[in-house]
Structure formats: structure tokens, C-alpha cells
């Protein structure tokens, strides 16, 4: 399998890991990390799969750059919320009740 496909496959694995993490992990900081793992997985698939035939393609690279910046923004926002929650409740986990 070509290097690109290898990257892509690793990306898939990372995505699955990250997704599972977001679903299962209660601790919010670790959940945010999991989300980042998930995102990176998607980015890897994007660049890897597109360049599986070995030819460099700047379009997915540019897309990934864009994606990374967006992910940074999302992460910062999430951290701000977590920090706020910590300030208000002293917890870094979400309560279980749903009715809100």
C-alpha cells in the first residue's frame, strides 16, 4: 500500500479513537484532546487519500491548513467554556442530568 494510503488508514484509526474518546471520556480536558485526535485523523485522511498515487496535491494541503486553524479556534473556545465551568462549579465534568 502506498504511503498516502498508509497515512489515510492511520487517519481512520485516529478518527475512530478520537470519536470513541469524545463519546466515552467524562473529563472535559481529555475529551477536548480526543476531539483534536479525531480532527487530526480526518485531516490525515484528507491529505493521505488524495495523494495516494504519490503525486503532491496542494488543494487538500491547503484545506487541511484551513481545517487546522478552525480546529484551533474550536479548541480555544472549548477550553474557555471548560474554564468558565470550573470557575462556576469547581468541576471539570458535565453533570449527568439531561432535562437541563
Amino acid at each position, binding site marked *: *500500500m502506498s504511503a498516502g*494510503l498508509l497515512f*489515510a*488508514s492511520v487517519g*481512520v*484509526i485516529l478518527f*475512530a*479513537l478520537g*470519536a*470513541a474518546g469524545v*463519546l*466515552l471520556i467524562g473529563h472535559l480536558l481529555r475529551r477536548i484532546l480526543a476531539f483534536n485526535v479525531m480532527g487530526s485523523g480526518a485531516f490525515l485522511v484528507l491529505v493521505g*487519500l*488524495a495523494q*495516494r*498515487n504519490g*503525486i*503532491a*496535491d*496542494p*488543494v487538500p*494541503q*491547503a*484545506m487541511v*491548513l*484551513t481545517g487546522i*486553524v*478552525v480546529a*484551533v*479556534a*474550536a479548541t*480555544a*473556545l472549548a*477550553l*474557555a*467554556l471548560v*474554564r*468558565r465551568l*470550573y*470557575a462556576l462549579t469547581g468541576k471539570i465534568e458535565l453533570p449527568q442530568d439531561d432535562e437541563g
Partner: protein
Amino acid sequence: MKRLLVVLGAACFVVLLIGAMLDLAPAGIALHAAVSANLPSSGVEHPVTAVLLNFRGYDTLLEIAVLLLALIVILAVGIDSTTDVRPAASPVLQALARLAAPLMIVVAVYLLWAGAFRPGGAFQAGAVLAAAAVLLHLAELLPGWQSPGARLRLGLAGGFLIFLAVGAGLLFQGALLEYPPEQAGWMILLIESGLTVSLGLILAGLFLLLSRDDGDRS
């Protein structure tokens, strides 16, 4: 139980997807060809920069909006002064920071300029600037931020506004962000310079706003 299901599901997903990837025919469309074909009229020599700021510049415009938005949200949510105990910066770190900061700025400028023809550009440059700010902050040479004043706000939004202005201006003689090939070069440079400053400030802001503590309250 839930744990098990999720893990199993994820595993099946991985197997399925990788399997599907392996027997995938090559794509019909080769955009990289189109990119290199249009590179000369894009105003920059580096293909990725060309895609980022010309071919798909619109993505970038919205992406900057997202970044600025995140910062505004952080301001709107209101970070309250939870004093996070940080060991006082060692004089060594401070000396290092004093030394490194100017160099980093130089590097940033270089990256910005280099972006036109090799890996680099506003994002990298901005990131380095932000890193410098963070370093100074960790060395306690730069205070964390309160809600920013008018000038700082201008700095934060300036790059985005320049980008918007150029794009909108071009709208009057064609499509959104449709650079005339001969002017494309300087227009993109203008945008990138603006972005470098704003991105630096925003990225730094994301850190400095989150990590301000009582000590910095003024």
C-alpha cells in the same frame, strides 16, 4: 456496556473504511494539474499559498472569521479571575525570552515573505508572533489581557477587515476575491501582512485571555 458497544462500533468502522479505501480507483479529476496550470496568474509561486489565498481564498476569509469569532466568544463568555498558581518565572527564562522575542519577530517577517514561493505565509508567521507573545507572558514580561481596548480590538479585527475590504473592492470589477493577475501579487501580500499581525494577536489573545489571573487585573 456502552463502552463496549462504542469500541466495537469504532473497530468495525475502521475495518470497513480501510477496506473500502484499499479498493478505490484513482480519482477522475486531478486538481493539482489545474493548480499548476493557473499558478502563473495567481500572483504567488507557491501552490499551497495560491490555493489558500487565491483559488480557495474564500475558505480562508471565512476561516479567519471563525478565529476572530472564537476570540469574541471567549470575551463574551467572560473569563473570571481564577488564580492559577504559576511558579515565578526564573531569571534565566526571562533573559532567554528577552533574547528570543526579537528574533522570533524577524523569523515571522521572513516566513511571511517566504510564503510567496515556498512553505510559509501568514499563518506560520502569525503563529510565531503569537508564540513570542506567549513566551514573554510566561516569562512574566507581558501581562495577561483584560477585555481589550479600542486599539487592541482594531489590531485583532484589522487583518480580517483588510481581507474583507480587498475582497469586496474586487467585487466591483468582477467576482469576489477575483484578483487581476498583475495586481494579485501585492494584494495578496497586503492581505497576508494584515493577517500576520491580526493572527498573531488573536492566537496570542486566545492564550493571554484564558490565562490571565488576579495578578494582572488592573
